[in-house]
């Protein structure tokens, strides 16, 4: 069986991910359907006996998988923003890389419309 750790940790991680997701929107994360479903599922799963219940383990596994999904997507998007999302540099920035500055001509360049 996969080593998943305590269910409380998985739940905390899931709630944290939900919080990050809803930080951008105005809504509190407790209002979301996902929050309600997860809390209800974890509560119900706690009630069953502590013996090696496969159903319990399966639910925890699914929760851990969902946590991995949320976390990986968030980190992937963050990495994308940081490394791949910037687009092209402007001409000024490109010149600045080697310490040059664009010329400033008050009348504009002769060949521009």
């Amino acid at each position, binding site marked *: 069986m996969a080593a998943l750790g305590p269910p409380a940790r998985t739940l905390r991680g899931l709630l944290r991910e939900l919080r990050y997701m809803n930080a951008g929107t105005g809504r509190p994360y407790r209002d979301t359907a*996902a929050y309600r479903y997860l809390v209800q599922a974890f509560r119900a799963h706690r009630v069953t006996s502590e013996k090696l219940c496969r159903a319990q383990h399966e639910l925890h596994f699914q929760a851990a998988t969902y946590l991995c999904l949320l976390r990986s*997507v968030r980190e992937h998007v963050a990495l994308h923003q940081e490394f791949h999302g910037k687009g092209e540099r402007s001409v000024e920035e490109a010149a600045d890389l080697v310490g040059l500055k664009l010329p400033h001509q008050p009348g504009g360049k002769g060949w521009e419309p």
Partner: protein
Amino acid sequence: MPSGAMWRSCLCLRHGWRRLLNRPPGGPTASVGKRASIPIPFRAYAPPAERKRFYQNVTITQGEGGFEINLDHRKLKTPQAKLFTVPSEALAIAVATEWDSQQDTIKFYTMHLTTLCNTSLDNPTQRNKDQLIRAAVKFLDTDTIWYGVEIGSSTSIMGPSIPTRTREVLVSHLASYNMWALQGIEFVVTQLKSVMLTLGLMDLHLTVEQAVLLSRLEEEYQIQKWGHVEWAHDYELRELRARTAAGVLFIHLCSESTTVKHKLLQE
């Protein structure tokens, strides 16, 4: 695929996208940036990469076919304009969360569960159960991870030859899963390039992080030896984890045993 059918499905796609976009006849006037004119792509089956978020609320309703997603008052449809229905409530909530978590622009490439559902509903490659199973089992020949019985290791480039019995057992085991679960299984096998790892995930022997690590053993070894490039290694690792996690969750939520368990818990 005969060209006639391809043209028909492309036309359906174009028509379907117009319905999905639900644009007013006048067209958006004050829109900024890329959104001003969305060229409907004529590629076979791919949504545009990014769109502005056009809805406020995402809700779930239950119809006769299963659970449906609503973006404001509009019902979500698949790229082929079918009604988006899923059999499992947990899956519907997860898909709704994907849609709800989009800010400003909708990043379709992060919505793995939605994509998997769309693939299962539309079946754009039009494969039946046997074809899916065969596609998955094909990876058995090149599987580099074994926790197996009769299959020895091999030093030749061709890999070990798989006994027919093993292949038959695997095929019959996979045949016990329904079409949706099989789409998920084939997806995960393609991502991890390993049937064994996928089975390990389905049987709860491995976590997604463990399976992904094992799938990337070669790469991890090279990283430890030669160094680690954040914008490539980390980026691909997160993407592989996300896709695999989505696939595994999809398999579990679409397999019948889950719905039975749900009823047990409600007592």
